[in-house]
């Protein structure tokens, strides 16, 4: 797994106390629901950590939010494209 994807996976696991390893998060599996099982509270928590570390504010109305959280790849790509630090 590319380094930045691994970094975002680690950030999610640490901020949400998930009981998985980075290798167990498939790059294209959904983060919501059936996949990793995140819910809206988790998403808010991840958004907060992302804003602090990468200086970007996630918005539900700017880009398709379902798309961003549809997989680790999409989330990491979005952060990589929008980060300010």
């Amino acid at each position: 797994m590319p380094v930045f994807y691994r970094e975002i996976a680690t950030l999610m696991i640490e901020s949400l106390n998930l009981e998985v390893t980075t290798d167990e998060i498939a790059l294209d599996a959904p983060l919501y629901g059936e996949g990793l099982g995140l819910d809206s509270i988790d998403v808010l928590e991840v958004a907060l950590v992302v804003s602090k570390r990468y200086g970007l504010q996630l918005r539900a109305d700017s880009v398709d939010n379902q798309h961003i959280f549809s997989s680790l790849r999409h989330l990491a790509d979005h952060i990589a494209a929008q980060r300010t630090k």
Partner: protein
Amino acid sequence: MPTIPLLSHAGPEQIVAWQQGKAVSVRQFLADAAQLAERLPAGKHLLNMCSDRYAFTVGLAAAILSNKISLLPPSHAPEMISQLQRYAPDVFCLSEQVQPLIALPHTLCPPTPAPITDTCIIPQIDADQRIAVVFTSGSTGIPQPHPKTWGYVVHSVRAEATRLGLMGEESYTLIGTVPPQHMYGLESTVLMALHSGNALSHQQPFYPADICGAIADVPAPRVLISSPVHLRALLDSGLQPAALALVISATAPLSAPLAQAIEARYHAPLLEIYGSTETGLIATRRPVAGVEWQLLPGISLVAKEEQIYAVSEYITPPIVMNDVIELVATDRFLLHGRIADLVNIAGKRNSLTNLNHQLTSIPGVLDGVFYMPDESGPDHTTRLMAFVVAPTLDAPQLLAALRQRMDAVFLPRPLIFVEKLPRNSTGKLPRAAVQALLRLHTTKSVA
């Protein structure tokens, strides 16, 4: 028979809502509601899934005008939807989504604004008309219905608006981060706007940046109606929203430090409101001024046989409160947390009895129990965990089955497979035994 108007605004040009920067007048709102009312199917019950708060409000008004009942279940999980259908076989879903998310007959909201007419008469609604049925999750897995009449909810939100100081000359805009599909959001972000002469924002912002955007989109004075989860996220984001006149929080207690930080950062008083699905809201407090809750006028709490009942002219028969309450005076009380069986995660309520029932009803589960760990700290979300005896199932299978039966916030994290549960001779599971099992598991996983 007494009647109450659909809304309390004084004239047809007053503002009911703000939608994408545009004011929606009473005249327009009534035209939109009448247009939708004509298109609603024959069924008497609806599940209003509109996520746009203005669309939801139009849906609610159209339902009231055509004497239909809005159903408010505690979750929209597939099992709950099946139970709603058993309760009301004619139930249909109303939403603005072309692709319906719920397995029910679907009605699409017509486009607004609808054509307006010259005449504008604010409809009168029978005070005894049943406008909603709110469900709580019962201990046996069967949701318990709590019918709400028009007179009841209007009385309640008028008392709330009076307490919050929103009944005066000024026209406030209410911005809600909580969904209108639950009692708190329905009362405080929708019905209170209709019955205090104020306006609501159509948005339902989620991320801190969205909340700031929704606040900036509407004119001052503004009221933010939210929950500890959203308020903590907003504060932690460091973003500074446009001026707020008032911040309201409910669903879970807010710690004094968080309340102080919010008041200091946003230069606005923060008031908490307290209530239940069964009673609606009954009390308020300002956490920076003290821990005591002040009952709304007309409501009293009565202790009877070690339980506390809420009672008022509208709350008859009296309703037992599911929290540990200490009466301080006739109109004031202290809240000491929830009764152990009830869990409230991010404003969604359930009972451990019901969750255990759902878990052990899954084919292949021989035994199982949910466990709520002690709170790690105020304002943080503590997650449920569960122990399960299910030798033929694995975690993904079990979680998929649970997801069919409960809202995702109640899914156990972690879910621990064990050979058997430490039940005592009477079949009970003392909390201490579960705690010991937890210690055993955590030591194991560390080692």
